[in-house]
């Protein structure tokens, strides 16, 4: 589904990603871990096509199509969803109106029903839909809002950037269960890339692969056992 080949990325002429390779197949769950400043968030932004992030070399392929130069809205439409670490706030725009603006089917009745159903699943109070987008939301509420949008957009590849930050344990469980359910529903078509600091995450979700990213490269890949090692020894063991 996603193939990243020998990727070099710079922002403001600073090279951040330095020769990164990654392959995610349909139905796979990958976890990427790494110390601060190793290029984790940059990786998620560049896949989503964020402006000002410049690809110096290499390729990103999604379903065998090069997406290096695609605009972010086009990338989104191919079925790539990014759950932001720090979602933006938009004053004066209700959450409902925002969500409505990217829903394809314009049947108002069903839209609302559909959103309500998903809110229930995620324990989101319906009142939030009429509130301004993320304004005054707690960290956890913002993350729930991200996942609500994911469930509505039905992406093929979901990237979770620090989904655990700002979430209490119950909310985290709830969110991860919803994501798992979503992936498992059409296992052959949906994949997941989790970017995190949080080693405990394997208690809730079983990855097919775990990678360690450092200095813009993936320096170690393995299965879930790798996380146990990171927990035990820290990143330093792998860096040296």
């Amino acid at each position, binding site marked *: 589904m996603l193939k990243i080949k020998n990727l070099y990325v710079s922002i403001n002429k600073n090279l951040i990603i330095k020769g990164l390779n990654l392959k995610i197949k349909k139905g796979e769950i990958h976890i990427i871990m790494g110390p601060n400043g190793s290029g984790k968030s940059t990786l998620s932004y560049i896949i989503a096509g964020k402006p000002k992030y410049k690809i110096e070399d290499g390729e990103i392929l999604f379903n065998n199509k090069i997406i290096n130069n695609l605009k*972010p809205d086009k990338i989104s439409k191919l079925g790539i969803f990014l759950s932001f670490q720090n979602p933006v706030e938009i004053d004066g725009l209700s959450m409902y109106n925002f969500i409505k603006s990217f829903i394809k089917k314009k049947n108002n009745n069903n839209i609302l029903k559909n959103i309500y159903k998903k809110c229930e699943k995620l324990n989101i109070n319906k009142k939030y839909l009429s509130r301004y987008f993320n304004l005054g939301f707690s960290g956890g509420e913002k993350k729930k809002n991200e996942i609500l949008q994911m469930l509505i957009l039905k992406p093929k590849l979901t990237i979770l950037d620090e989904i655990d930050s700002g979430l209490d344990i119950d909310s985290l469980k709830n969110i991860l269960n919803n994501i798992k359910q979503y992936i498992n529903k059409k296992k052959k078509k949906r994949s997941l890339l989790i970017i995190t600091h949080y080693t405990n995450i394997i208690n809730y979700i079983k990855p097919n692969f775990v990678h360690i990213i450092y200095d813009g490269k993936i320096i170690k890949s393995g299965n879930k056992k790798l996380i146990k090692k990171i927990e035990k020894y820290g990143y330093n063991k792998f860096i040296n």
Partner: protein
Amino acid sequence: MKKEFIKEKYKYGFYTKIKSNTFPLGINKKIIKKISKIKKEPKWFTKWRLKSYSYWKKNIYKYPKWANLRYKKINFKKISYFSKIENKKNKKLIKTFNKLGVPINNKFDKISIDFIFDSISIKTTYNKILKKYGIIFCPLSEAIKKYENLVKKYIGSVVPYNDNFYSALNSSVFSDGSFCYIPKNIKCPIDLSTYFRINNETIGQFERTLIIVEEGGYVSYLEGCTAPIRSNNQLHAAVVELIALKNSKIKYSTIQNWYPGNKNGRGGILNFVTKRGICYEKSKISWIQVETGSSVTWKYPSCILKGDNSIGEFKSVSLTKNYQQIDTGSKMIHIGKNTKSTIISKSICMDNSISTYRGLVKICKNSKNSNNFTQCDALLIGKKCSSYTLPYILSMNSTSRIEHESTISKIEEEQIFYCNQRGIDNDNAMSLIVSGFSMNIINNLPLEFAFEAKQLLNIKLENSVG
């Protein structure tokens, strides 16, 4: 190619070829007498016009220079001050207004419209229903003859002819406009509206609106305007006077969509408008405006809160692009006790445009326990536009309260990227963010106007993110 592009941006920029009787260029006593004569005005009125003209002439070199606006000096000799189409029933007129989206013959639901084409009022709809309630809604030139006493009592009472340079000019040459009278305890069941269209190339438009609401009455009034695309600047100098008597309410909404000039700042309407209302005891005046037009705008809709417990409101959203300049705001003069005023001004500024908020809040000595709240928010898009906030605040007693809040923000790239990531393209992302920004204002407009205003903002926003 480029021409087409601009045309597409301002879809009201067409010209109607129609036979009309247009006065020779220039202004003098003869011209004024001639206007007055064509309109068969009473003598006192002609005199008032001439008095205004003398005042204006005396002050011709004292035109206001204090505004934060740059434009070529207006040559008043190169303007025609009156243009009247020969046949009001000309089919081309019907076509013109159809094209503008305000069909003359097709009755709008619950809106009575007065159509003004250059200097003349063409038609007023829904007259019969209004008559049933004793409401008068007609061209001002008609009212001067038919309801002479009302006009005599109120015209110039809120905006005196010598109030400022442009009000003096307007008082001497104004051609037509709307007159509205709501009798005691009558709540006008439909919205009243005037649609202004400048068609002729050399004409200046000087219309005048007078709205009087008797005790306990209510009216919601809407004003819309457009003009063809011209490479020269055209002058528009209007005066609006509102009189809200005890316990009455007036809501005055404007959607201004004059031709704003082309990409390089050539052409467009020069808009110098004096709008003011007076509030008697427990009455309320609300000014709501959406501004997208004019190359230069100079306008300060104001309230004189004369009566105790009266309320004044000004809510405005403006969107400027290319080389548009706008110097606008409000004046709230608190005279009565326990008076309240609110000013909310939101400006969205793009390209090379300049947007200035200029406002006066004055609480007089005897206006005890009064308060004002002012909020000015500016949203800047791009690197070359600029926004200024110039509040003048004066409180002459210790029991009143004045609050002023002001913010300037930029549309963040993060917000656009976030929207993009959900599959929303740049134009729609901008439109979502801007509509959020201007939401509080647009929601105050009557429903059909709110829809139109949103569309207008969207059209102007297209391609604004590179």
